[in-house]
């Protein structure tokens, strides 16, 4: 059974990765998870300087989901390189550094520092960050900025460059095409969906920042629709993320057209979800006479006789 997938010259041993911000830097859970059975680890988003993150409360549970506003708390790229990377190099999996920043320059500077390091196999760029120079609006909702970030980063690395798109836009395909045009190697779809919850007794938001990011099974249908829109817009591989808990969930994403998947929130429930999802996909393919998990990718059969105009919701 072939499970692997290649981006540029980097081979992932299987198509199941763990999502940024849901697995620490990869060094928190070794005794609970056999990391060598994961396709790869997307690190917690790294910024140039350490970030304390947002005040508490930072998380709250919702129906089949959770809201978070961690505020990209992280130790900063220097400490990551010095204190975390040496241990990560020993892991038999791919380490993709996820980068968050508040200016295009910061994205570039963080990437340059990491690009020089062995053991960093590629980059995932979190564009769902406030653009400090422009009053805090998210980079990820402006196609021109996402274009520019991709262009600048592409010039600076020959390693796989993955742009992680936000679902909080009207047409994600527009952003996907912009990234493809500027040389991105792949797209991660989706980051969290903006959401909110209220404590009616205190009449306060349930998380300190009022709104936060919704993740978990509740968003899986949204994520699948965004992946579907994206794979129909670009030729570069798409990494599906959003609400994956079981291998069946992952199979949905592959069938829709994702080349790989990431496990986020489910790691909080079962840190070894990635391993069981990879196993499940392998078994499913074996049972269906497929010799490569990749044979599932983009095998969705849609009803071509239903036109857009007919398909009013």
């Amino acid at each position, binding site marked *: 059974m072939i499970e692997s997938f290649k981006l540029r010259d980097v081979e992932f041993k299987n198509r199941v990765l763990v999502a940024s*911000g*849901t*697995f*620490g830097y990869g060094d*928190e*859970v070794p*005794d*609970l998870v056999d990391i060598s059975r994961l396709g790869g680890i997307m690190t*917690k988003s790294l910024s140039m300087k350490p970030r*304390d*993150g947002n*005040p*508490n*409360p*930072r*998380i*709250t*549970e919702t129906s*089949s*989901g*959770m809201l*978070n506003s*961690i505020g990209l*708390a992280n130790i900063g790229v220097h400490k990551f390189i010095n204190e975390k990377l040496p241990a990560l190099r020993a892991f038999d999996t791919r380490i993709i550094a996820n980068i968050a920043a508040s200016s295009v320059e910061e994205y570039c500077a963080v990437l340059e520092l990491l690009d020089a390091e062995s053991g960093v196999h590629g980059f995932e760029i979190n564009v769902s960050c406030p653009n400090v120079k422009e009053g805090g609006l998210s980079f990820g909702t402006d196609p021109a900025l996402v274009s520019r970030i991709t262009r600048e980063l592409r010039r600076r690395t020959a390693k796989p460059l993955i742009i992680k798109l936000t679902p909080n836009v009207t047409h994600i395909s527009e952003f996907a095409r912009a990234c493809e045009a500027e040389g991105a190697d792949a797209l991660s779809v989706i980051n969290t969906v903006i959401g909110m919850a209220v404590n009616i007794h205190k009449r306060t938001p349930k998380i300190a920042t009022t709104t936060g990011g919704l993740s*978990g*099974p509740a968003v899986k249908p949204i994520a699948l629709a965004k992946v579907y829109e994206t794979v129909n817009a670009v030729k570069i591989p798409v990494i599906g993320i959003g609400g994956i*808990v079981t291998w069946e969930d992952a199979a949905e994403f592959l069938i829709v057209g994702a080349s790989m998947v990431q496990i986020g*929130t489910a*790691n*909080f*429930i*079962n*840190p*070894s979800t990635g391993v069981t999802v990879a196993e499940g996909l392998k078994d499913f393919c074996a049972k269906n006479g497929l010799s490569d998990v990749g044979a599932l990718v983009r095998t969705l059969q849609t009803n071509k006789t239903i036109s857009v105009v007919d398909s009013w919701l």
Partner: protein
Amino acid sequence: MKQELVPIHSFQQLTPEILELTFISDHLAATAQPGQFINIRVDNSFPLLRRPFSIFNIEGNKVSIIFNVIGTGTKVLARKRTGDTIDVLGPCGNHFLSFVDDSFDTALFIGGGIGVAPFPFLTSRYPAGKKVLTYVGGRQKDLIVQKGLRDPRIATDDGSLGFSGTVLDLIKRDLAASPVSRPRFFVCGPTRMMKAVAEYAKEIGASCYASLECDMACGIGLCQGCNIEMAAGDKKYRLVCKDGTIFETQSVKLP
């Protein structure tokens, strides 16, 4: 730390409000320390997140927790049956015994409501030589658990059991009547109560360690969701699930 499916051994109704659930785990029996918690997936798909519970006691390989039914998770848990398995991850967090040393003489164990949960286990593992006073407070008698505690002194808001008033009022009265030498407070309960105890401890120059509670997504340091603000130091926040749940109360800003 391990994730395991463990069989439920028994349920026992400790009070009309509070249930004890006992399950079998060699792993926890061998490794857990008083004050640590376990994180339970109460059901396969609903609710989504695990629910943290203090280890109430361990006897042989029988591990127990106590809870009252307050929401979705505890409702599902209360409907389990003997022989069912539950998905348990633990032990998590730091523990009380790491704060037991020669710098104090008398420990005051102070539990508020369901916050009494860690004290029976702590009682059973507490160094034999050291003096302990145990206090339990609650709104009314159905919320008072005494099992596994040594000579608990009880306070209820409505006076339905023991002293009528808050547990802190009772402690103040007792300490005024018979002062103890070099006390250290170990407290677990509602935030308001822990804050009051912490303040009192500060007043009388005693140290105070509180086991904090907050919403947790993972319980093992992965999500960064359970931050608590530090009163001072280089780190603005620490994680309740990993750096705690037990903190020296002057080191943190209680919410």
